[in-house]
């Protein structure tokens, strides 16, 4: 009996000291998620400035509403204002931790609500360098993780972790994430395509604290290294806990967006 107890204790001790890189990576991801939960709901404006390799620009303007859902992914409604031919087009997403997201697209010209295949997640969002999956709610369960190293990013102490998308429909083999050690927020993400070549780099700039707890970046800059194209995503007018409810995120609510 005593031997068994000793054995158990020693096993426990080994486990505590020798946390694997996978466990440490997951623990960091969990902490990021944990610190960013409880915000309830938010509304914001989103501008996307698309720039091709010749420096030609085009602009997208959107409004976003999001509702935190307990024990599941968030509900999100995105309404387009620019370009003007897609004004009033709206995208409703019920994201899920493990199974595929549910997605409906509202086409105002026909007043038609269309359920769409959310597995098109690797596709570009509105012709930008952001894929749907880059903008989707970042649930812990959507990746597996590995801690790589501690490092400094522009003088800020960071954890560098690697994550691997669980979904076989993802456009990526892996992503490398630089996580601020103190605030547990991403500062930079490198995306590697299915062939494991560096595809894009996302940098977060102008983090601000809301509700005294939640960090949100004002700007997210995505550079595509393979095409030379880039997209600057600018967030404006963040408002938290605005009283949004489930009834603001229904197929019917899509039809009345303005």
């Amino acid at each position, binding site marked *: 009996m005593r031997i068994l107890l000793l054995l158990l204790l020693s096993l426990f001790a080994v486990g505590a000291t020798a946390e694997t890189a996978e466990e440490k990576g997951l623990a960091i991801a969990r902490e990021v998620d944990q610190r960013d939960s409880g915000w309830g709901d938010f509304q914001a404006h989103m501008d996307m400035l698309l720039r091709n390799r010749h420096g030609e620009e085009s602009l997208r303007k959107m409004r976003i509403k999001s509702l935190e859902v307990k024990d599941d992914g968030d509900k999100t409604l995105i309404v387009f204002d620019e370009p003007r031919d897609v004004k009033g087009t709206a995208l409703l997403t019920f994201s899920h931790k493990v199974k*595929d997201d549910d997605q409906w697209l509202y086409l105002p010209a026909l*007043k038609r609500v269309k*359920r769409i*295949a959310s597995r098109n997640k690797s*596709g570009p969002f509105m012709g930008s360098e952001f894929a749907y999956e880059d903008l989707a709610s970042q649930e812990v369960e959507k990746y597996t993780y590995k801690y790589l190293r501690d490092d400094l990013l522009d003088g800020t102490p960071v954890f560098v972790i690697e994550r691997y998308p669980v979904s076989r*429909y993802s456009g990526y083999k892996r992503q490398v994430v630089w996580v601020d050690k103190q605030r547990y927020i991403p500062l930079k993400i490198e995306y590697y395509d299915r062939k494991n070549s560096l595809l894009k780099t996302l940098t977060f700039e102008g983090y601000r604290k809301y509700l005294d707890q939640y960090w949100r970046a004002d700007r997210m800059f995505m550079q595509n290294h393979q095409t030379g194209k880039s997209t600057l995503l600018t967030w404006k007018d963040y408002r938290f806990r605005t009283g949004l409810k489930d009834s603001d995120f229904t197929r*019917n609510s899509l039809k*009345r967006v303005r």
Partner: protein
Amino acid sequence: MRMGGKGWLLLLFGLFPAMPSLAWDWAGNMAVEGRTFFQSPLDPRQYDNDASISLEPELAREWHDGRDIFVFRPFGRLDARDEERSHWDIRELHWTHVGDGWETLVGVSRVFWGVTEAWHLVDVINQTDLVEDPDAEDKLGQPMVKLSLEQDWGTLDLFLLPGFRERTFPGADGRIRTHPRVDTDLTSYQSGREWKRVDLAARWSRYIGEWDIGLSLFHGTGRDPLLLPAVNGKGEQVLAPYYELIDQASIDLQATLGQWLWKLEALYRHSDNDSFYAWTGGFEYTIVGVADSAADLGLLAEVLYDQRGDQSATPFNHDAFLALRWTANDEQSSELLAGFIVDWKYGSTLLNLEGSRRCGQRWKASLILRAWLNTDERGLLYPFRNDDYLQLELARYF
């Protein structure tokens, strides 16, 4: 708008003082369109080339934090050649009020039901604005009072539809029309109240996991007219639209399974003249990032069946639809849909190509190419056999 236009304008101006002074939200588009036909028309009165301009502004306003919404969306087209195609309509003029788990809409609006791509079988609330596009996707505004209940068991929409709208048909000079032409001055109804009859409709819809389901009922004057041979006041042989009273029950269903969308629409319709069922269904399979690009390629296949067979009031009674949808996912949102609908009994085929691309922030160019091939005289597409055409449109959005 042929009917009740002035009344709705009065209603609009009556609503103005009732609204708090918030900023109006302006949107909409204006467009120039050109059409060219490749063959000589069957009727010498018909044109070969056509040009037209259209305007569709939208004025909207929200108040009470989006709990009240007002929308006004008129539409007008000036056509150089076809006086029936020069027309205007109120697509939307309504006030929506949103409660907790319920919603009301009063005014003129458009409602879309259904899931399929080639033919919208169960979509019966609005009349087709056929002069706009022979694909029947453009709809006239329908006066309505709508109550929606949104609960755990799904969404229930109840409709009171006062004021019937007649389908628009190309005039004597117009292309893509029947021979003889339809004369809307000779319209008649089964209902003694004619266009003043109040029709009723109800729809329950919800989603369960991957399934989106809708069950609908309609009772009133059917939107599809029977076209009866007649002679008008000028002694001209024409077709006269006759609108029957119908009862219709329908289902629409979509399963969204990964890259597959499975779709079905089916209806049973009863009238004094006829009772029948019809269905259309199939799939859309999307290949994401085709050939290592950002583009998606969709493969679409649908079957269109109508129990009335050769006596159908629709051209698609024993037909199959096959198409490819290419979506570039580029900055210009370039898209191309290419396909055909073929009658498996007689071989009549409608070829259809639709493309569009944005230019800059505010312009959009669209192209439509349609051809009717191998048309059989027993089919309803036979009158269009010389109407193959190319249409280009340039629209400015504001």
